[in-house]
C-alpha cells in the first residue's frame, strides 16, 4: 500500500545523454528532488558509472540507465520500448522528457540509416523519441518536453536542398542547423498539441557550458578550439538549472514561451517561428523517422 502510494506520487524524467555534462547534472539535480530518473547513454561503461555515482551520492535515489545509440533509429525505438516497460509501474506515465544528447563531429559521418550523424543525433533523435514518448507524456496531466538547443541557432537557416550536408559538410554549420531544428520542432510541437494534452514543449539555450561535447568527435585545431572555448563556460550544474526550473516549476512565469535561457523566457530566432518552416521540418521529420510512409516504398529483393 505504502509502496503503491509512493510510486503513484513520484514524478519521472527521461534524460538522454545523461552520462556527462549537462545531462548528468540535470539527472543529479532531479534525482535529488525525488524524481525517478531514467537516463540514456551510448556507452555501457559510462552508463554504469553514472548510475553508480548517482545512487551513491543520493540516498534513496531511483535511477536507471539504459544504453542506446541515438544515431540509430532502431535503437531509439528499442529504447522507447524499454522505457515504456519500465514505466508500467508508474501506470505508464511520464512527466518530463529531456532531449539533451548531442554531438559534434569534424567529419561527415553517415549513420546506419544513411543520415548525417549530427542531424540524426542532435535533432532527428529528439523528434522520434518525443513522438514515441507522447502517449505516456499525455498521461501526466502536466508534462514537459525539454530540448537542448543553443544560441548558435540564431542567424542560421535550414539548408533545405541538402539538410544532411552531403555536399560541402561543415562541422559548425551542421551543428547550428541541428540546434535550429530543435527550436523549430519545439514551436511546431506546441502548435500541434491541444491544450487538453497537458504537454508543453520548451527549448533551452544552456549558454556556453564547460563540457566535453566538442572534444569527443574532433581532433587537432578544432579540438583545441573547443577546449579553449569551454574554459570560459559555466559549470554544467548551472546550465542544468534552466532544465530543472522548466521540469519542476508547477507554474512558469510565461508557460506559453517556448525558448528559455537562464530560467527566463527569450525570443528565439524569427526564422524558427515561421509557419512554413515549422510545417516543412515537421513533415520531413515524420518521413525521415518512418512515421509517415512515402507514397511509393522500396523493399528487399
Amino acid at each position, binding site marked *: 500500500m505504502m509502496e503503491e502510494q509512493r510510486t503513484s506520487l513520484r514524478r519521472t524524467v527521461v534524460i538522454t545523454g545523461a552520462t556527462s555534462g549537462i545531462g548528468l547534472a540535470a539527472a543529479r539535480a532531479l534525482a535529488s528532488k525525488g524524481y525517478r530518473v531514467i537516463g540514456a547513454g551510448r556507452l555501457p561503461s559510462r552508463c554504469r558509472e553514472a548510475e553508480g555515482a548517482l545512487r551513491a551520492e543520493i540516498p534513496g535515489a531511483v535511477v536507471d540507465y539504459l544504453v542506446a545509440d541515438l544515431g*540509430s*533509429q*532502431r535503437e531509439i525505438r528499442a529504447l522507447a520500448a524499454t522505457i515504456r516497460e519500465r514505466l508500467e509501474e508508474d501506470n505508464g506515465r511520464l512527466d518530463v522528457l529531456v532531449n539533451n544528447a548531442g554531438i559534434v563531429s*569534424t*567529419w*561527415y*559521418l*553517415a*549513420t*546506419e*540509416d*544513411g*543520415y*548525417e550523424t549530427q542531424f540524426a543525433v542532435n535533432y532527428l533523435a529528439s523528434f522520434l523519441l518525443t513522438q514515441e514518448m507522447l502517449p505516456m507524456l499525455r498521461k501526466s496531466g502536466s508534462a514537459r518536453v525539454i530540448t537542448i538547443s543553443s544560441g548558435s541557432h540564431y542567424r542560421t537557416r535550414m539548408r533545405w536542398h*541538402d539538410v*544532411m*550536408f*552531403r*555536399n*560541402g*559538410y561543415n562541422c559548425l554549420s551542421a551543428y547550428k542547423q541541428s540546434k535550429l531544428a530543435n527550436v523549430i520542432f519545439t514551436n511546431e510541437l506546441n502548435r500541434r498539441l491541444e491544450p487538453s494534452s497537458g504537454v508543453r514543449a520548451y527549448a533551452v539555450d544552456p549558454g556556453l557550458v564547460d563540457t566535453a561535447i566538442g572534444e569527443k568527435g574532433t*581532433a*587537432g585545431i578544432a579540438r583545441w578550439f573547443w577546449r579553449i572555448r569551454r574554459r570560459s563556460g559555466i559549470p554544467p550544474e548551472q546550465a542544468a538549472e534552466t532544465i530543472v526550473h522548466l521540469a519542476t516549476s508547477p507554474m512558469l512565469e510565461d508557460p506559453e514561451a517556448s525558448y528559455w535561457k537562464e530560467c527566463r523566457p527569450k525570443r528565439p530566432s524569427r526564422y524558427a517561428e515561421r509557419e512554413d518552416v515549422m510545417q516543412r521540418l515537421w513533415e520531413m521529420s515524420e*518521413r*525521415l*523517422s*518512418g512515421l509517415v510512409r*512515402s*507514397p*511509393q*516504398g*522500396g*523493399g*528487399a*529483393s
Partner: protein
Amino acid sequence: MKSYVLITGAAGGLGKAFAAECASRGWDLFLTDTTESSLSILAEGITRLSNVTVLYSPCNLADPTARERFWEAIRAQGLQFHFLINVAGLDVEGPFAERSTEELGAIIRLNIESVVSMTRMILQHRDPTRSLRIINVSSLAGFNPMPVKAVYAASKRFLLDFSLALHRELRESDVTVTALCPAGMPTNLPVIKAIERQGIMGRATTRNVGYVAVRTIDRALAGRAVYIPGAINLALRYLSAVVPRSVVTAFLSRRWSSARKQYRHEELALKGGGVFARPIG
C-alpha cells in the same frame, strides 16, 4: 522499364554516401554488402530520404559461388543497370611477413577478382537504352608502391590500370569507367582515428565522403577517366610522377613506419572490424 544503380560495399561509409547521393538524384538503387541487416536498415533509410526504389541483396563478393548466385537472382528478376559503383574493398594493414596468406589472398579476391567479375557481369545486364557508367574505387595508393600496405597498394594500382584501359576500350559501346583515387577517407571512427594519427598531412589530404561521392558522380557523368579529390592530393600525384619510384617508396616507408610506431602504442582500432575493416582509401 526501371534501371538501377548497383553499389557494392554499400553499408560502409563511402557506400552510404554514394547511395544517398544517387537517391537524391532520383535514381533507383540496388545495394549489396556482406550483412543483410545493415542493408535492410540502410535501404529503409534511403527510401525515406528520397522517394526512389531501393533493392538489396547481401553477398560476399570475394566468393565466386556467392557472386554466381547473386547474378542468378538478378537474372531471374530481369533487372537492368545503368551504373555500377564498385566500392567494396579491404585492407589488412601491417608488415607483409606478419600477415597470413589467407589475409593477403582476401585482399586480392575482393579488391581485384570481384571488381573484374562485377564489371564483366554488368555489361551483360546493362540497360540498352542508356549509357553505362562504372566507378571503381582505387586509391591515391594506386600511384605508388607502399611498404606495409604492399598488397593493398598493388591491388589499387591494378584497379587504376584496369579502369584506364577499359575506359578506352569500351568507349565505342557507350560505357565510361572512372577510377576514383582518394587519399584518406573518414568513413568510420577507427579510420578517423588512423587519419588523425597521421597529423597535419592526414587531415590535409582527407576529404569528406559526401564531398567525394557528389563529385565522383559528376566526373563519371562527364566521362572522366580518373578523379583525385582535393588539390593537395592532385599535386602529390603529379609530384610522385616526376620523382623516381624508388625515392617515393623510401619516403612512404618512412612515413608509414613513424605512423605505425604511434599506432602500436594505442589500441589496434583499425583491426576492430576483423578482415572486413574498411580501407583507408
